[in-house]
């Protein structure tokens, strides 16, 4: 299963990539929403995107809005992965089209549990 990690922090991307690789996922990365859209256009088989909220150029919230406008990505699961922990932000992300919300910091077990909620239990080991 291919997963896109969108985060402006290379350290965070490294950490998430390590977790996902251990779970058997293929990983592609982008450092902001704009690059993520470009990455997606050449990686049509991405099934899940882990999207940070606060990024330069195009933030995660804007990225989710853009992705959800495009019917081509209807089946793609979007998980907001962020330090934003206010209820208003959770509501905003879900209303924009995020399927799940993971608050930083998190562990691999939390990623597995959230993936299961997205219906991809067993797809990752």
């Amino acid at each position: 299963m291919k997963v896109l990690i969108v985060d402006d922090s290379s350290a965070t991307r490294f950490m998430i990539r390590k977790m996902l690789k251990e779970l058997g996922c293929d990983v592609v990365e982008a450092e902001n929403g704009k690059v993520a859209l470009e990455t997606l256009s050449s990686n049509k088989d991405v099934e899940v995107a882990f999207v940070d909220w606060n990024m330069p150029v195009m933030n995660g919230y804007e990225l989710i809005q853009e992705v959800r406008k495009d019917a081509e990505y209807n089946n793609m699961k979007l998980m907001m992965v962020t330090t934003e922990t206010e209820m208003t932000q959770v509501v905003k992300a879900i209303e924009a089209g995020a399927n799940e919300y993971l608050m930083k910091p998190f562990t691999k077990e939390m990623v597995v549990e959230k993936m299961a909620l997205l219906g991809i239990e067993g797809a990752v080991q």
Partner: protein
Amino acid sequence: MALEEQDFLYVSKMVREESAIVLEKGKEYLVESRLSPLAQQDGYASIKEMVQKLRETGELVLKLKIVDALTTNETSFFRDLKPFEMLQKELLPELIEKRKDQKRLEIWCAAASTGQEIYTICMTIRENFPWLRDWNVRILGTDINQEVLDKARRGVYSQIEVNRGLPATMLIKYFEKSGIDWKIKDDLKSMTEFRKMNLIKPWGSVGRPDVIFMRNVLIYFDTDTKKEILGKVRNIMQPDGFLFLGAAETTLNLDENYVRRTYDRGGCYTLKGKDAK
């Protein structure tokens, strides 16, 4: 029976060395709730006595058991997912049909711990069967440890705890922010009642549950105690009720009066010859 500070510090240091899991101060309740069943199972009078034995002998098997008890079976919302899916899609619709005249349902979480399982059941009911508000629905949570029950009753969870297994849509609907923590809304809390109870002592009144969640409890007990508990469950559970055990637990070779009912890769247990389906 509070855990003494020196014992807590000893255990937390050992677990940190063995598993890299950090048990900070304030997690005494967790250590107690995880180690109490182990101490009982191994015949110690208290956790203190068990920890004392470890300090004196450094016995490897005991050390591993303690580390195992403290590092596995961590609870989370919607833990293992499938039991709640089975409850929602198969068991509750069946029970609701059967009990539509009495309008009465009883669910018992026999190891309620810090409450994630019982609140998951409440969310499953509110979300899928909202009309059960008009029914007499009793959802009882019991645990051997008073501190975890107090936490369950408060229904306040840290960010790390709500990160575990809880769908964002449920977080939005059934929680409210309380400082840096997340608090279960009163409407959901009002569905529950909690009581301290030791499974190897007389049970008192747990009613006649239609569904019993007793997951990851039997693993702590020896064979005779497992048989005794399963026998007591049989006596109090509704004849057409359902029993959930942990994924690594079974009634097989312990009590032949149970029948496995499968669902996806999981399942639950019913009583032989009594399941109307």
